[in-house]
C-alpha cells in the first residue's frame, strides 16, 4: 500500500472515529433515551416526517416535471425564461420564511407544511428537468424528427431517457433538502421530527435534540443513498455523464 492510500485510509478512519466517539458519548449520556422511552411518539413523529416529505415531493414531481417538459416544447420556448426566473427568484426566499408566510394564507397545520415544502421542492426539480432536456444535442432531435418519430415518441424515447440523469439528480437534491426543511415544519405546526429538535432547543434538553436530530440526519443520508441507487438503475447506460464526483 502506498503512502497516498494510507493517508486516505487514515482520514476515513478519523472521520469514522469522530462519528463513533460522538455516538458513544451520546449513548453514555443517554441522549437517545427518548427514542425508546417514548417510542410511540418517536414513531409517530417519524411517520409524520416521512409523510410530509413524501406528499410534498410527489406533488412537486407532479408539477415540476410537466411544467419543465412543457416549457421546453418548441412553441413554449419563450415562456421558459419567465418561468425560470420566477422559480429562481422564489429560491432566494429562505425556506423558513416560505413556511412562515404560508401560515397567514393556510393557517397552521400539516397541510400548510406540505404546501410550503412542495413550493420549496419545485425549483431543483424544475431546473434540472429543463437543464436536462435543454442539454440534449439539437441534432438528436433533428435526427429523430427526420426519421418520422412523433413528438410524443421523441419525448419518451429520446428526451426523457437522455435527460433522466439530470432530472433524477434534481429530484434527489429536492427530496434530501426536503427532509431537512421538513424538520422546520414544527414552526407551522406541521409536526415531524423537528418537534423534538425544537423542544430540545427551547428546553435545553440534549436528549430531545439528539433523539430528533440524529434520526433526521440518518434519514437524509439514507434517502440520498437510496435515490442514488435508483438513479444508477434507471439512467440508461449510454447517457450517463462521463465523470461524476
Amino acid at each position, binding site marked *: 500500500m502506498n503512502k*497516498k492510500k494510507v493517508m486516505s485510509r487514515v482520514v476515513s478512519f478519523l472521520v469514522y472515529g469522530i462519528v463513533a466517539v460522538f455516538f458513544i458519548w451520546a449513548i453514555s449520556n443517554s441522549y437517545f433515551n427518548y427514542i425508546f422511552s417514548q417510542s410511540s411518539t418517536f414513531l409517530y413523529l417519524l411517520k409524520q416526517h416521512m409523510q410530509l416529505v413524501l406528499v410534498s415531493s410527489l406533488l412537486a414531481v407532479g408539477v415540476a416535471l410537466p411544467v419543465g417538459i412543457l416549457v421546453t416544447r418548441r412553441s413554449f420556448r419563450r415562456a421558459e425564461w419567465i418561468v425560470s426566473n420566477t422559480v429562481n427568484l422564489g429560491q432566494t426566499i429562505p425556506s*423558513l420564511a416560505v413556511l412562515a408566510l404560508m401560515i397567514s394564507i393556510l393557517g397552521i397545520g400539516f397541510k400548510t407544511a406540505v404546501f410550503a415544502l412542495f413550493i420549496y421542492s419545485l425549483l431543483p426539480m424544475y431546473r434540472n428537468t429543463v437543464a436536462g432536456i435543454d442539454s440534449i444535442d439539437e441534432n438528436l432531435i433533428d435526427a429523430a424528427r427526420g426519421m418520422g418519430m412523433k413528438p410524443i415518441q421523441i419525448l419518451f424515447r429520446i428526451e426523457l431517457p437522455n435527460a433522466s440523469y439530470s432530472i433524477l439528480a434534481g429530484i434527489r437534491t429536492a427530496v434530501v433538502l426536503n427532509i431537512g426543511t421538513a424538520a422546520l415544519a414544527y414552526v407551522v405546526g406541521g409536526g415531524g421530527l423537528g418537534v423534538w429538535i*425544537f423542544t430540545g*432547543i427551547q428546553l435545553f434538553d440534549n436528549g430531545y435534540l439528539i433523539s430528533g436530530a440524529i434520526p*433526521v440526519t440518518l434519514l437524509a443520508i439514507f434517502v440520498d443513498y437510496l435515490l442514488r441507487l435508483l438513479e444508477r438503475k434507471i439512467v440508461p447506460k449510454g447517457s450517463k455523464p462521463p465523470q461524476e*464526483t
Partner: protein
Amino acid sequence: MDKWMKFLEVNAPRILDLAIEHTILVGLAILVALIIGVPLGIYLTTNDYLAETVLQIASVMLTIPSIALFGVMIPVFSIVNQGIGFVPAFVALVLYSQLPIIRNTYTAIRNVNPEMRDAAKGLGMKTSQRLLRVEIPNAFPIIMAGIRTAVVLNIGIGVIAAYIGAGGLGVLITQGISRGDNYLIISGSIAVAILAMIADGILLFIQKRYTPKSIAN
C-alpha cells in the same frame, strides 16, 4: 403601503444591524472555509484516493439537514459552554461550505490543460509559482462559482441559526412567527433575498473582473 412605511421607519435601523450581523457571520465562515477548502482542494489533485474520501465525506455533510446539525452541535458545544450562539452557527456554516469549495477547486485545478502545466514546468517554474501563475488563474472562474454557491447557501442557512441564538436576519423571521407578525416575516425574507443577490452579484463581478480574458468564454 402606509403601514409599511411606518414599519420601516421604526425597524430599518434594526434590520440593518441584523443584516450586518448576518453578513459578518456568513463572511467569517466563508473566509475560514476558503482558508481550509482551497488549499485542501489543490492538495487533493495530487492524491486521488484522498480526494475520493474527502469529497464523499463533504457530500454526506451537505445532506445533513441544517436544523439537525445545529441540534447536534448544541450539546457538543455545551461541553465547552458554547452551546448556543455564534460558535455552533459558525462551525456549521464552515462545514456546509466545504463541499462546494473543495469540489470546485479540485475539479478546476484538475481540468487545467495538462499541456499548459507541462509548459510551465518546461519554463522552469517552481510548484508554488506554477500554482499561483498558471493553475489558480485558470481555475479561478470555477473556484469562484463554488464560492458563490457556498455563500448563497450559507446566507439561507444563516437564517435558521437565529433559532440557536446566533442572531442575524433570521431573528426577524423567528420573531415574526412567534408574534404572528407578517411584516417582520416579509421584511426579514426580503432582506435575506436581497443580501443573497448582492453577495452573489459582487462575487460574480469579482469573478468576471479577475478571470483571464483568454479563458472567459
